[in-house]
């Protein structure tokens, strides 16, 4: 067990609160910090009574501060709003407008939590950072690499959002909950009498109230003075037949079935969105199947990389909660890309989403679906 001080990223929820308390109980020197990422009062039209998924709300900061006080650690709120907007919110909006379906949590992990926060930890003399993520980190002496492994509690596993972690980041990160089941975490929180022990789990995308990302985008674009109307267009079939019109491509995501506003004999699904023509292409369930894809900006974790033409068997997860599907990874000339070929075609391979490659529990690496 390393002796250096640890900065704990405290959200005010049960998980990160428990992490901080566990580490204090183990006699570690801990400093708690909450990241202020987004000003919830900024887009007032989104203010919904009882909205869920409100990141950085004053209530959460209050809870985190209370736990820090309870366990006797120094605590600070650090302001990363500017970086969050630049690296997470803007790319999120841009990706949707470009017809892709982004995952802001991964961007936040890559650019904020395991980058700016780690730097802040460094600034205050903490070598390690710990979070309440459900995942495991292990140093593999044979390969000399840090490995990222799925959480023991598979239903809480968050490795899908952590594929961008570099070796340097993994070397300084602790995930104390990776070995625990969620009920055990709650028990721990209760046994330590943490003020947040019975608080509900957070859901959805943290800065988007009630998970209504289309409403968020509309409000954000309006604030930025962008004409939302320019994203309106036609809904067409795979054969090019026009079925109707839509209010903006960012209201649609690949695989979506509800909310098309079109009556049809068979269920219709969004197959693709084309920002160039503002078209939303729909089709039947079979049209969603694909046998493979290319991933870009690949980050390798347990593997150092794949040589061009080299094949590696893997299980590939193409969205959160997707059961990893058996596939072959094939190296291409560009080391930052990889080809993925499924054994059996998979439904709704969505450009912009992450693809994470596993060997059992071990994360080989991951990239972004092209």
């Amino acid at each position, binding site marked *: 067990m390393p002796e250096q001080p640890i900065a704990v990223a405290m959200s005010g929820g049960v998980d990160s609160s428990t992490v901080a308390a566990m580490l204090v109980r183990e006699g570690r020197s801990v400093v708690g910090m909450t990241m202020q990422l987004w000003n919830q009062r900024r887009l007032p039209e989104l203010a919904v009574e009882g909205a869920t998924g409100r990141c950085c709300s004053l209530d959460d900061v209050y809870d985190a501060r209370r736990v820090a006080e309870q366990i006797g650690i120094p605590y600070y709120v650090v302001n990363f709003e500017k970086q969050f907007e630049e690296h997470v919110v803007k790319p999120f909006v841009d990706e949707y407008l470009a017809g892709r379906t982004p995952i802001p949590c991964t961007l936040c992990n890559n650019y904020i939590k395991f980058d700016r926060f780690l*730097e802040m930890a460094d*600034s205050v*003399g903490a070598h390690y950072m710990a979070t309440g993520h459900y995942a495991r980190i292990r140093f593999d002496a044979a390969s000399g690499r840090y490995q990222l492994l799925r959480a023991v509690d598979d239903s809480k596993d968050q490795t899908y959002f952590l594929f961008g972690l570099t070796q340097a980041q993994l070397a300084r990160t602790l995930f104390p909950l990776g070995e625990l089941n969620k009920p055990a975490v709650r028990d721990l929180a209760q046994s330590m009498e943490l003020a947040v022990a019975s608080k509900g789990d957070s859901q959805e995308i943290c800065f988007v109230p009630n998970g209504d990302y289309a409403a968020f985008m509309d409000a954000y674009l309006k604030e930025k003075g962008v004409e939302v109307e320019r994203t309106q267009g036609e809904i067409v079939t795979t054969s090019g037949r026009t079925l109707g019109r839509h209010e903006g491509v960012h209201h649609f995501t690949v695989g979506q079935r509800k909310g098309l506003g079109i009556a049809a004999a068979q269920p219709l699904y969004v197959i693709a969105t084309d920002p160039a023509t503002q078209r939303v292409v729909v089709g039947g369930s079979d049209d969603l199947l694909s046998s493979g894809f290319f991933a870009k900006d690949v980050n390798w974790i347990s593997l150092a990389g794949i040589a061009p033409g080299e094949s590696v068997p893997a299980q590939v997860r193409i969205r959160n909660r997707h059961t990893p599907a058996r596939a072959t990874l094939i190296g291409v000339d560009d080391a930052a890309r990889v080809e993925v070929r499924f054994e059996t075609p998979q439904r709704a391979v969505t450009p912009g989403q992450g693809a994470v490659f596993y060997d059992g529990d071990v994360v080989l690496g991951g990239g972004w679906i092209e």
Partner: protein
Amino acid sequence: MQGHPVLPYYPGSVCARIVKYNQVQHFYFDHNATTPVAPEVLETLVACLGQTYGNASSIHHFGQGAKQKLEAARRQVAALIHASPTEIVFTSGGTEANNLAILGTARAAQQARRHIITCAIEHPAVLAPAKQLGSEGVEVTCLRVPENGIVNSEDVRRAMRPDTVLVSIMHANNELGTIQPIAEIAQIAHQTGALLHVDGVQALGKIPVDVQALGADLYTISGHKIYAPKGVGALYARKGVRFAPVAYGGHHERDRRPGTENVPGIAAFGAAAELAARRMSEDSERLGMLRDRLESAVLDRIAGSGVNGSRWNRVPNTSNIYFDGIDGEAMVIALDLRGFAVSTGAACSSGALTPSHVLKAIGLSDDRARASMRFSLGRDNTMEQVDGLVEAITASVAHLRRISVHA
């Protein structure tokens, strides 16, 4: 967590400090935020809290006892700023006094006077009520302030209009400590019959304040910046100055501010005012010397550092210094973990820091504003503490510059 090899890490750096965080002794260098209650003041406060519980409006013995304390404090506070006791309106603090002055005078003014002037480095307790008036149809001119942090009185002259009802300029700036040319501005304001309000919260107790010599019509002061408790302040309103109340519900404070008086707090404010009058010249000289020692040591040792705003025309306890390439927020935390309380920017409701509007207003780049911190000294600071602070600043800046990849 298993499997993490123990890595050698910055031997001798701040991490040794954080390990012992709970044993670190803490020193206070944030007196412009608030001050501790002075022992003499605490005595008055506790005695009054325990014994003087009457309502100052009551006619009986208990009420009269409270009324006596209230009026004695009014005389003490008035004396500190060379006012007459009847010109002192006690409030809950500086923010309320500023609101009362700005909203009150504008709302009491004749319909023909619909313009007010303030400046960009004012405290939010002035800027926000001015903005509120803006939304009520009053025109607001917010003057720019040059890099030295001192309002140009000629700019005030140029902004004056026949319909200007109020000019509101602070006496000393909270972040830079710079002193504004109030007497000159008063003359300019009065030429066209406008009133002058001065937010004197950061000047009181640090430099002599004579509201008559300054020519201020309204002057805001606060107890907790002069070693009295939080929750008590006052507005000086020159006899004859009309302003509308901003709250309704009683005849207290000569119909100018309703609500049962906070007698213990006000009595403590009075004691603190008397103490300030007695100690000011000695405190100023000593704190000025310590501040200059801090500044010259830091500027001498740390490349890429400098003082924001004028080094002259400043209150003696305040120093605002930039350290190029560092993140002020990280530095405040690092210094706190080393036991030194300083500040940067303004805290928002969550406690997170936002870049200072004052530093931006005087033309600092975002980077330099982020890299700046305020040190504000007070009565309890010693030379040893200042020397310790210099060491901590030097080590923190070196550490932060070494690790910063975003600088």
